[in-house]
């Protein structure tokens, strides 16, 4: 499978990354090279194979905890890294007209 210019533009849109025309061209070349290379996986017969999403959990279960509040009360510490905030809230551009 090969990637087209329109694919690259669509992926950039989905990734929420704005690209210049030059960047689109250069990612087109890179992605096609990488895709060509990973396409060798089509040689492997996986018809009867189930996927492994994580190597954990084969020997023990993943951790679960009770759904209770364990910490909190640190609003100001969390907000302290926000680029824009007001009255303890994150500030974003207007979303709804």
């Amino acid at each position, binding site marked *: *499978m090969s*990637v087209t210019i329109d*694919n*690259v533009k*669509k*992926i*950039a849109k*989905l*990734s*929420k*990354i*704005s*690209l210049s025309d030059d960047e689109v061209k250069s*990612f087109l070349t*890179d*992605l096609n*090279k*990488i*895709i060509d*290379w*990973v396409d*060798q*996986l*089509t040689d*492997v017969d*996986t018809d009867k*194979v*189930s*996927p*492994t*999403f*994580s*190597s*954990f*959990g084969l*020997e*023990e279960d*993943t*951790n*679960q*905890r009770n759904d209770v509040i364990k910490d909190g009360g*640190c609003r100001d*510490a*969390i907000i*302290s*890294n*926000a*680029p*824009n905030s007001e009255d303890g809230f*994150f500030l*974003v*551009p*207007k*979303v709804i007209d």
Partner: protein
Amino acid sequence: MAKLNELCLHEARDGLKNKSFSSRELITDHIDMMESSRSLNAFITETPEIALKSADSSDEKISKNTNGPLEGLPIGVKDMFCTKGVLTTASSKMLSNFIPPYESTVTNNLWDNGAILLGKLNNDEFAMGSSNETSFYGPVINPWIKNNDKSPLVPGGSSGGSAASVAAHIGVGSLGTDTGGSIRQPAAFTGSVGLKPTYGRCSRWGIIAFASSLDQAGPITRNVKDNSILLESMCSHDLKDTTSSSKEIPNFEKAVGKSIKGLKVGIPLEFIQDGMSDEILKMWENGKEWLKKSGAEIVDVSLPHTKYALPCYYIIAPAEASSNLARYDGVRFGHSVSSDDINNMYELTRSDGFGEEVKRRIMMGTYVLSSGYYDAYYLKAQKVRSLISNDYNEVFNKVDVLLTPSTPNSAFAINEKYDDPLSMYLNDVFTVPANLAGLPAISVPSSKDKNGLPLGLQLIGKPFDEETLYSFANIIEESSSFESIDNKWWLQK
């Protein structure tokens, strides 16, 4: 008297315990070394004030005999670990102003054990790279140079600063993270010992996420014994990470020096590659000989799906990364470019905040997860991953450990591979399978190539059997009599 930063971790530990010197004296020598080695660009943030203050508190504990196992010892931390109140950047413009309000579990464990933060170490941006050249803060320079050519070399990556600092005798050990070889490859390039533990051995909580099903924290040190000591303090069962193991944490140090007599070493034939250099082949042969002499049995084994590990990794890791890095939106923390339109703000923020390799991987990951391609790429890769894991499960019914080279070559020059992403990816060919299968693996220095640069051997073990790796790595270390750096050419006089 030699500077105290020349001591390795266990020597410094014992010296502090015997009161041969104070933690303040030890820390002062390490700070001096850190400051006079700035040309290596290993550190993004130096924390001398924190270190000296902690040293005084460690000295007090030592005098009262309430010292922890790592009391008073200086450790460098890869800038992927969140450290409370200390800038944590992932070597990205995106986090160039991020001060975490919390501490990662692994670093917290170290401070609880008495260790002292020396500074935050440079790495490839978001740990994506094999040469430390993708860092927003510029490349790290390898303290090793060729005998006859003084051009600067990469330290490997992504834990380039972690490996370079340890090799340059700054800090007695460092923390790295390994998603596809990011501890073992730079350890090999810098003549250091680097271990990627079994997936689940160290908590991932508070480590900036790259590919969550592959990421593991691990130690880089100047010898095997030090590595075992540092690992033990890093581990804990952490309910804040759903994949943190509750298995008992052994005394890893006890495994160092243990006999390997009668144990079986597998040599995976598929790791022998076309065009593999004679030096690498010879190093591998030497490794076999050393282990054989120590009473181990060498067995040829087959891991038939080895050649698919790298392409499989370069689907799964970017896919997970594209999802993990969606959080960098310019709203809650990090770099932000303002705009009146929210989508425009996201796009401009991410376009400006991420470097080229990070964007490439987000794009690749988004592509393989997108509608119409998910089954063909992402799901296919996860199935191939099952086959790779099965190969290892079967082999470990027959052998106790696998021996391979750590890398296909020694350290390369800055800019040598930077413009060709694929040739850079190929550097991880021997290290990636252990991440896909979640297995522990260690790189140990074994010899030097014709240019005088370090080469490393890799040992891959059964799940949660880091102890056997340490026993074997110790034999390689003793047999190789590898000498660390003597020419400190980079020092600013």
